[in-house]
């Protein structure tokens, strides 16, 4: 048993334990904390599995943003201490939370329900385990083909090449998903910008000063990551997530952030990544001897960088706006 295997087993055990606890712990706060650690363990696993790009993104997204989101939500939906004895029969009320579960049968999780869940999940797991055991142990996937075409992709980092050249369509659509999520939240709220959000200025002056200094640093780091993506782990996602994290920090300390952007500026930032790729798609579709989304070979590198920059801005601003909206203190 090599040390690396021990590490693997420990990490796997930790992942399983944490996820089990976070789903079963009766305390929601504990679950939230466990969720954040789940993200961190996953990031470790990515590093171990030679996927540093994902580790970067996961550390920022899974542990950072998701944690902030969940924690913030938890803080705001958690009832004031001691309500549990107040409404013993509230399940019958029309608008009680019991009417908003995924599955209505869960309204009364009786033995039958637990049985179904247990049997279903166990079957699924068993099948998955069996299937995984049957998988070929030496799959190559598309590594070779990607390596062959890397030269003509315009970048040197294979993951960036896949994301922004070979499978640019996916990336584009994913920016669209991000856009739709924000639009959905906007739609519920009924306003296109964040300027109406109430501000908090609870943070101490020291923290504000500190974060204020951090701001330019965050932008710098994001730009560096962006540039790094050309030839090493890094790129638009990671940069965007870092940018988002910085913007969220600014917002949390009451410093100017996404919520100070006027409507047009905010929307432009949100849509710029999607629109940039759309523009590329339209132009390449119109061009006579080209495929949609095909970079002109001479400009591939610089175009990719430009698109990445646009995507970074979009991802950063959109995620920051989403977090700001989730964490907003509504005064209704």
């Amino acid at each position, binding site marked *: 048993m090599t040390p690396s295997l021990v590490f693997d087993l420990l990490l796997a055990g930790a992942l399983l334990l944490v996820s089990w606890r976070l789903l079963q712990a009766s305390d929601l706060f504990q679950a939230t904390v466990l969720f954040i650690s789940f993200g961190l363990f996953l990031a470790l696993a990515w590093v171990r599995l030679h996927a540093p790009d994902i580790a970067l993104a996961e550390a920022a997204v899974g542990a950072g943003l998701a944690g902030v989101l969940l924690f913030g939500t938890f803080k705001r939906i958690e009832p004031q201490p001691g309500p549990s004895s107040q409404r013993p029969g509230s399940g019958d009320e029309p*608008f009680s939370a019991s*009417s*908003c*579960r*995924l*599955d*209505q049968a869960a309204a009364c999780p009786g033995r039958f329900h637990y049985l179904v869940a247990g049997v279903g999940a166990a079957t699924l797991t068993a*099948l*998955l385990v*069996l*299937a*995984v055991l*049957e*998988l*070929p142990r030496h*799959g*190559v*996937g*598309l590594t070779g*083909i*990607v390596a062959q*075409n890397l030269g003509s992709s315009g970048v040197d980092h294979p993951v960036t090449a896949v994301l922004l*050249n*070979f*499978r*640019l*369509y*996916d990336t584009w*659509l*994913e920016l*669209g*998903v991000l*856009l*739709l*999520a924000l*639009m*959905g939240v*906007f*739609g*519920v709220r*009924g306003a*296109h910008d964040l300027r109406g959000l109430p501000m908090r200025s609870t943070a101490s002056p020291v923290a504000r000063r500190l974060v204020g200094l951090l701001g330019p640093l965050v932008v710098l780091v994001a730009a560096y990551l962006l540039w790094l993506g050309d030839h090493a782990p890094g790129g638009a996602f990671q940069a965007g997530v870092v940018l988002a994290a910085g913007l969220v920090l600014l917002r949390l300390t009451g410093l100017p952030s996404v919520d100070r952007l006027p409507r*047009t500026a905010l*929307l*432009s930032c949100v*849509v710029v990544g*999607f*629109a940039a790729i*759309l523009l590329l*798609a*339209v132009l390449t*579709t119109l061009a006579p001897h*080209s*495929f*949609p*989304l*095909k*970079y002109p070979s001479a400009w591939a590198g610089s175009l990719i960088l430009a698109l990445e920059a646009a995507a970074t801005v979009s991802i950063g601003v959109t995620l920051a706006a989403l977090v700001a909206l989730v964490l907003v203190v509504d005064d209704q």
Partner: protein
Amino acid sequence: MTLAAWMILVPFMGGVACLLLRGRAVAWVGLAASAATAWTCLPLLRHVWHSGPVRIDLGGWAAPLGIGLYLDGLGAMFLLLTAIVGLLVGVYALAFFGRGREYARMEPYFWPVWLVLWGGLNGVYLSVDVFNVYVLLEMVGLGAVGLTVLSGTNDSLVAGLRYLLATMFGSLIYLLGVALLYAQTGHLDIFLLADAVDGSLPVLVAFGLMTGGLLIKAALLPFHFWLPPAHAGAPAPVSAILSGMVTKASFFLLLRIWFVVFPDVTAPVAGQLLGVLGAAAVLWGSLQAVRQTRLKLLVAYSTVGQLGYLFFLFALLTPAGGEAWSEGWASMAWTGTVFHVFSHGLAKAALFMAAGCLVLAMGTDELAAMRDIAGRLPVVTFTLGVAGVSLMGLPPSVGFVAKWMLLKASLASGQWWWAVVIAMGGLLTAAYVFKILSFTFVPVGGHDANARPKAGPKAGRNVDQGANEHQGPKNSGVPELRPVPALMTLAALTLAALCVLFGFRAEEVIALLLRDMGLEPPFDAVLIGNIGGDRP
């Protein structure tokens, strides 16, 4: 042939434009983009019709590396359906959201989300990459949820969240299948996968997972729980979009997966299982629909029931692997099902749009409030009736064509039990459609209903019955109807009329549909064999 790419680009451009604009311009630009998309669809259809399937490698990267766009007859049919319904929903929405502050608030969100969603739907019908499909499905799902919660009422929020969780769950299960499949084969393109899949366990599990994930999104019976509240709680144009189009996207992918990727793996028992679930959905959904007392919920449950018909196809076509394809009735089952998609898309959108008109006029969607709607809003009632006829599968409508072919296919294939279910489903459909219609015929006030100047005997009898039995205390006040924009009524009516028109033009559609399925046209042989070839 880059026309196919425009089917995605045009709505996306419209969406971005709508996002950045303000005021009424949003609606007009949105409508223009809808019209442009529908217009782009026509030459594309013609192209597929004349020269067969289209394939585009995006970015110039061929299949194992890049993502392809591919359009065959089946995809063309779904594109066409989306274009027709989308355009008319656009027209409807223009009037619907232009009616006052309460609705105008939603307008700047409706259009961009809907257009991007439309692009996503078109993308689903064009995509041949299983991971790309995942992203598209998320796009469609998030867009649909965003539209569902547009009204911001608590009910719609709850329904929307439930819908969101369900659709996320479905996508993740699907993605799990994709991951297994990629791990086993190293491919993502469906045609490459079709060559690579074998009967190994990972492939089977992947097949099951992908099917299961899509079934959750397609709202087949045990997974339908999210559908009725979401579809009923959304604003009327959104309900039309969700019921008419969004549910079809997952079904389309099921078709692709079952009959393109895994045709050799599908076991008859799996097909029968889907068929049984479909049958249960038909019966149970329709029964629930009959029980409802609110119009929009009724229509939403009807969607659960009507979607069930689609799954008979899997039962009919899976026996003996690919062998069923050589049978004459295979193409009949295939075309019948696609026709049902069409009929349901058109009719259900028309129903929801008409229901929206009624809700607007009456201020409520209680069925009991629909007194004398037939007299006061005849066109809307007519729309309800015609769309209902198509749902029931009665002639002359596209629903009849669909049921006809499905029935024939199930009889010809020897699986007659589906025919029984189809017949019973038709009856239940009739029950709820006429439940709606009968409410519209109840006269408003007891006193002037059917009264004649001569105060004839029958009128006298009516007075007694009317006053005693169902007018009750609120007899005096005839609820005023608010005006309904003519454009809304017209859009709904057009859809209903299309239900009828498509029923008369089945030939072209069949020809387009079967272009590249390797199927014989279903009827020519039979036709010539029995009547003699003297007729064209």
